[in-house]
């Protein structure tokens, strides 16, 4: 029984972290209809930024993640404004292809800049844990989980309450109408991508704190984001949180009850079932289905 509870606890915590990885990906897909294959590379880049400020300036990852967020936001803004915007009106394959190229570029760029060595951001607390009713709760993952929830709530608030957020949502729903209302779509798109990249940067720093990474990890994060974004419903930020936790739980429990690596097959079965029976995602309505293509 303790084993079961332990698996649940761990799965939820892991899921929260995954949600933070995926939320930006979901936002970009939902608002701009761009499947960003370089998302994982942004996550890893964020981890490197977090690592650098930790090693050079001694910044704790929970402070370093803001540096990563700002740096990645700037990079994301530039990339969208001057590169992706050039093809954003094309069919989805076009942007897909472009971000694939970007992924190659970033991944090997990091390979050259940081070598392929595995890295981790060391803290005195992240690896420790405390017990609640026999269930071990790792401190680092708990903090990352809390962060993930806070960020998601904050993001939703920004999207629904602020002028910037509302212009992002409006552009996502109907770009033509949004432009008629005086919204600068180019700028808004760049902002959206920047925000997503910034969130990826934060997630990356957290990943670096609780786990290990190297440039080759990028692909795995993109794939996970893909799955979580669809489970949650594209562009749905709470959905990403739910999708992340579902995947975390399925992996933890499946791994606990099943032998070998059957658990991975199970995770994808869940994905397909959700798509079949609840194609707009687990939570509410997908943003994407409300879109008007212009």
């Amino acid at each position, binding site marked *: 029984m303790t*084993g079961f509870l*332990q*698996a649940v606890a*761990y799965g939820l915590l*892991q899921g929260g972290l995954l949600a933070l990885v995926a939320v930006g990906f979901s936002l970009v897909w939902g608002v701009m209809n761009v499947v960003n294959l370089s998302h994982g590379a942004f996550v890893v880049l964020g981890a490197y930024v977090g690592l650098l400020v930790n090693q050079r300036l001694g910044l704790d990852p929970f402070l370093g993640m803001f540096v990563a967020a700002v740096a990645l936001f700037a990079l994301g803004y530039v990339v969208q404004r001057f590169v992706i915007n050039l093809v954003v009106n094309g069919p989805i394959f076009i942007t897909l292809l472009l971000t694939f190229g970007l992924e190659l570029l970033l991944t*090997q760029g990091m*390979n050259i800049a940081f*070598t*392929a*060595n*595995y*890295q*981790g951001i*060391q803290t005195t607390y992240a*690896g*420790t*844990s405390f*017990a609640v009713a026999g269930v*071990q709760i*790792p401190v*680092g*993952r708990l903090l990352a989980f809390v962060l993930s929830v806070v960020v998601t709530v904050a993001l939703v608030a920004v999207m629904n309450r602020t002028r910037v957020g509302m212009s992002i949502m409006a552009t996502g729903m109907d770009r033509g109408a949004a432009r008629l209302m005086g919204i600068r779509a180019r700028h808004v798109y760049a902002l959206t991508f920047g925000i997503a990249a910034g969130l990826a940067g934060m997630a990356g720093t957290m990943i670096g704190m*609780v*786990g*290990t*990474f*190297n*440039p*080759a*990890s990028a692909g*795995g994060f993109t794939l996970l984001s893909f799955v979580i974004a669809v489970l949650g419903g594209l562009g749905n930020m709470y959905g990403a949180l739910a999708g992340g936790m579902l995947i975390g739980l399925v*992996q*933890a429990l*499946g*791994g*606990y009850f099943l*032998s*070998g*690596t059957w*658990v*991975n097959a199970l995770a994808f079965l869940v994905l397909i079932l959700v798509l079949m029976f609840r194609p707009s995602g687990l939570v509410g309505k997908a943003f994407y289905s409300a879109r008007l293509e212009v």
Partner: protein
Amino acid sequence: MNTRVLFVSVVTVGALALTACGSKGEAGPSAGSGDTLTLGASVSLTGKLAREGTLTQEGYKLCVEKVNAKGGVKVGGKTLKLAVSYQDDTSKPDTAAQLVDQFNDQGIKLILGSYGSANTEAQAAVIERNNQVMVDSSGADDKIFAKGYKRTFAVLSPASEYAASIVKALADLASPKPTSVAFLSADDGFSKTAADGGVAAAKAAGFTVTGPELFPNGATDVSSALNKVKGSAPDVIIGSVHLAEGVAIVKQVKELGLKPKAIGETVAPPTPDFVTTLGAAADGVLGSSQWTKAVSGKDDYFGDASAYDADIQKAFGHAAGYHNAEASAACLALVLATEKAGSTDPTAVRDALAALDVTTFFGRVKFDATGKNVTKPMVVIQIQGGKAVTVWPKDMAEGSLVWPALGS
């Protein structure tokens, strides 16, 4: 208009392919001609094995430097400069095999292995067909040597020894002796062979064995496998892993509150990144290694093991890992065999390799009939104060085993 497109493409196919490859007339055999001996090496510089691939390339580079510093390779009265042609196989077995074929086109018959068992296995099949010869620096899976290949030689101990050596070291050194061992393993062929070898050794030594529990190769979350063995509260957890999973095991054992007396892992602990990634958490972890700087034996090119370590430090700015050493040793074995054969003819070199029996900085290199180096023992290290200290076998030990290894 379709027709034009077609026509254009006909021309492009022809032209591109021709320029890509050159016609048969142009490219001539280049290896062994003139005063240079060129070896072919496909190394994994990008992709998921980029880390280990880079270390392998460093080992080859140092070997070239050392051999040329001695003048070069003495073949039948001539002294040839040693050179290695590197190609990136992007960590994919099919590309690694394809590159061996490309080397063959260029007349390069003497090949140094890529990184990892999958790549090496794919290469070995091609080597055999092309009558080339390969010295394998890191493909340890016993399966490669069960296929009757006659032209692939491995300087390293086979996979089945990786986890088994840790078990033997514990049976030898730990006091009070642990009673139960849980095995975890990545699900690739090499790791599973290593885990099976460990299980067999543990049963022979009278331990209670759980597992092996599997997780995907390259996993950074191994909590479910750990959760499964948690119930049996094993004294020792042995992971048959690569670096990423190895780091995850150490982190998550702590996170999940498991209290084993020791963690042992294949491959990961001797890698320099293991300590830099884990920091103090790495202390006490046991690891098996193909080589450490405590290994006895010396040769004319590299000197002894600690001289080798110093040279790697000087050239690449980090301590020598066994991935470096096995690569240098593979290159050295190929060079020594070529000198002994007195010819760069691959079959002569093959025969010389089969008969080779030398002592090097890497230890003794002597191949059995299948091409494995069975005379060299694995070394077991323990991380103590952030350093990898050789603790087993006893005659090479730099320090004694700290036991119980994980404090408490």
